[in-house]
């Protein structure tokens, strides 16, 4: 009994999935879901804003969270809608496609009751009925009609099959497009790599800034090649707006340089199916820290800024020295020159860079999760501050020596593989190619019958259009004039 109800339920679900209205409603619901995603902050893109909402309006945030609104595109309901749409599309396209294929093979019956058609005319022509129909057949063919069946004294013709074919091509292409998105995501990955000038990046899971997003079926197929960033450059326009961002790189495989190339905005580098995009950049000062003569820090430090064009938000970073007692933390700011320390200036070039510092001591609280670019200052106290020009060294109380050795830049690359790209491009093209005839052509049919009369033949012509009926009025008139050139035409 229960299974009976269940299968009946499934049957009715299946029936409604086969209707085009359902597909469109599912599509609209997907649209609605994405609207939610565009208005509610999304955790994968802006975790900070999500955290903010949790802090400010915890109840609302918890409701959003339960509904999956913070990650709409990863939520179960979005996936469900997507899958249902795919099923629904396939379910309504398969019968239509079958219908079209069957229709192509079959012959039609000449219509019996021409006068009942929306368009009808008759007129007298010369010659026998067979000759008249032959002439009509040639005339229709010349005008691009597909003459489908005939006999000696009658014929039927059709035009505008492109509409049905185009429409099906469009719908299937859209189906494949939806599938291609899933395929590309499932077999690809996306990661971000921050590489300082002179350094080498290896295309492997562990070398990304944070674990790359890998598709379910990607299966660790990283390519293992290396990219050495020779240098990074920003070209500016007058007035300080950037004109171009360029990373000059070498691709290295097994220790050998395979190629040298440039990565620019809008011009990614592709190697072994992996694409590298220019996505960000920044400054990386080289600061050396010695404690009682022992070198503690000497690598370049990645600095960040909240907005590279905002003068009041300079590039900043931090050094944390948990190994000495008490623990010491340095907050650093990189500025274009010493004057900028007061006035504020965007860091465009490193002609005369200036490193401002604030030194803190106490407990860094490194047992807590914290940003590498900031100090957790609750248990710290500031004990010294100042600034360094390039090459200068300062001694801090407690036996610390800080040297501002060099400034480099780093480039941020988006690295990704998407094997679905070719499919996407092809189906997008098919969407467009199918759409044009689906929208602008119309299917129409014509029947011609010849009946002998005194001294000649009477041609009867009937026709109708499935779409664009108004436009067919004129076309039909013209056709009739063509088929019955001199005879008198009677239009009922």
């Amino acid at each position, binding site marked *: 009994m229960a299974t009976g109800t269940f299968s009946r339920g499934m049957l009715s679900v299946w029936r409604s999935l086969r209707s085009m209205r359902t597909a469109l409603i599912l599509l609209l619901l997907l649209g609605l879901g994405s*609207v939610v995603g*565009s208005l509610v902050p999304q955790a994968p893109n802006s975790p900070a804003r999500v955290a903010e909402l949790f802090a400010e309006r915890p109840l609302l945030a918890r409701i959003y969270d339960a509904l999956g609104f913070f990650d709409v595109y990863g939520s179960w309901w979005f996936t469900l809608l997507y899958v249902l749409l795919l099923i629904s599309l396939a379910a309504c396209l398969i019968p239509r496609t079958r219908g079209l294929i069957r229709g192509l093979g079959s012959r039609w019956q000449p219509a019996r009751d021409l006068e009942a058609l929306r368009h009808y005319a008759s007129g007298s022509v010369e010659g026998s009925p067979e000759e008249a129909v032959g002439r009509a057949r040639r005339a229709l063919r010349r005008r691009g009609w597909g003459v489908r069946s005939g006999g000696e004294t009658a014929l039927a013709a059709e035009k505008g099959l492109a509409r049905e074919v185009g429409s099906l091509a469009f719908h299937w292409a859209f189906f494949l497009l939806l599938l291609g998105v899933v395929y590309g995501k499932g077999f690809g990955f996306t990661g971000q790599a921050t590489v300082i000038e002179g350094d080498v990046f290896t295309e492997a899971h562990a070398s990304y800034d944070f674990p790359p997003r890998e598709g379910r079926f990607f299966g660790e197929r990283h390519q293992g090649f290396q990219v050495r960033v020779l240098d990074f450059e920003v070209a500016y326009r007058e007035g300080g707006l950037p004109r171009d961002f360029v990373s000059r790189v070498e691709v290295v495989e097994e220790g050998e340089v395979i190629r040298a190339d440039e990565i620019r905005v809008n011009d990614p580098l592709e190697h072994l199916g992996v694409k590298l995009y220019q996505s960000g950049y920044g400054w990386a000062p080289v600061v050396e820290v010695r404690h009682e003569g022992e070198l503690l820090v000497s690598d370049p430090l990645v600095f960040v800024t909240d907005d590279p064009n905002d003068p009041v938000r300079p590039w900043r970073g931090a050094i944390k020295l948990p190994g000495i007692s008490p623990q010491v933390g340095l907050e650093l700011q990189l500025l274009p020159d010493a004057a900028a320390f007061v006035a504020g200036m965007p860091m465009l070039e490193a002609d005369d860079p200036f490193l401002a510092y604030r030194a803190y001591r106490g407990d860094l609280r490194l047992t807590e999760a914290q940003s590498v670019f900031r100090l957790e200052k609750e248990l710290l106290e500031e004990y010294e501050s100042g600034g360094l020009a390039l090459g200068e060294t300062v001694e801090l109380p407690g036996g610390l020596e800080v040297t501002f050795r060099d400034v480099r830049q780093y480039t941020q690359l988006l690295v990704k593989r998407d094997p679905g790209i070719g499919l996407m491009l092809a189906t997008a093209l098919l969407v467009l190619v199918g759409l044009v005839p689906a*929208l602008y052509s119309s299917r129409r049919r014509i029947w011609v019958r010849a009946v002998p009369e005194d001294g000649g033949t009477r041609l009867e012509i009937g026709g109708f259009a499935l779409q664009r009926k*108004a436009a067919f009025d004129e076309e039909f008139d013209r056709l009739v004039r063509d088929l019955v050139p001199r005879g008198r035409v009677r239009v009922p």
Partner: protein
Amino acid sequence: MTEASNTTFGVALALYLVAMVGYLHHFAYRRPTPLTLARVVAYLALASHTVSVVLRGVAAGRVPWGNMYEYASVVGLAVVALYLVVAERRVEARRLGGFVLGATVLIMAASTMVYVEPGPLIPALNSGWLRIHVLAAILASALFTLGFVFTLLYLIQERRERRVERAVAERPAPAMASVGSGLPHDLEVESDPEEGRATVTLGPEQGNGHGGMPEGPTRRGRLPGAAALDDLAAKAITFAFPIWTFAVIAGAIWAEQAWGRYWGWDPKEVWSFVTWVLFAGYLHARATQGWRGRRAAVLAVLGFAALAFNLTVVNLVVSGLHSYAGV
């Protein structure tokens, strides 16, 4: 250069207003002279507007559709050009120029609120695909705007006609002659001998257009029949839909080049998708029994609302990767 561009923009705006008044006069009183004058002025305005856009491009040293002001200006230009050159070939559309120009004036006036001096683009926006993407979006937006104006008018006219039908049904008058008396003024349709039974059922299917029958002199201040308006709206939207589809695809190709993903549910992308879906719904609705007419029109209005939301609120308020295209 910039100044000349702004001046010609102002001249165009003023002339559009003048032409709008002329068209509305023609709409209200059905005189031919105001129509002729309005059309001449509209063409002059269009010329001035074109000059403004071209000069803007020269001043910026790039295509003149790189920010919101320029985008809106070119949309306005395309609305008028498409109306004058394409839509007005249909005689009944000539009565509607006042409404179309009204929409244009609104778009242009709004664009001045986001005016910026011409300048170069940031690197990510400097791409061939982007230029094509934006141009296609502009063309489609202009056509959707025309479709929106026609749809609104359709909704008004359709309501009137339903009221007439109801009134006619309630008092089975002999023939179609003298229903006039008991009806509100604007509904004295059936008594118009020259339009015959046209108004209630007027449309390309029945009367006008068959064999190119000329349009009879029509009543003052009367919109074309609902069927004709519906047809005009459908033409505009059907024309726009593949162009919009292309715009979305070109945008995806550009996004793939610039950001490494063709689709990321960026707010701008979300709303163009929603627009696309709503208009696809409209096209289906028109092909479906029981959904033609008012229900389809509602979808078209919603589609236009999504389009407008994308160009205004999303650009100005909701941030996304696109937002640096911003103001």
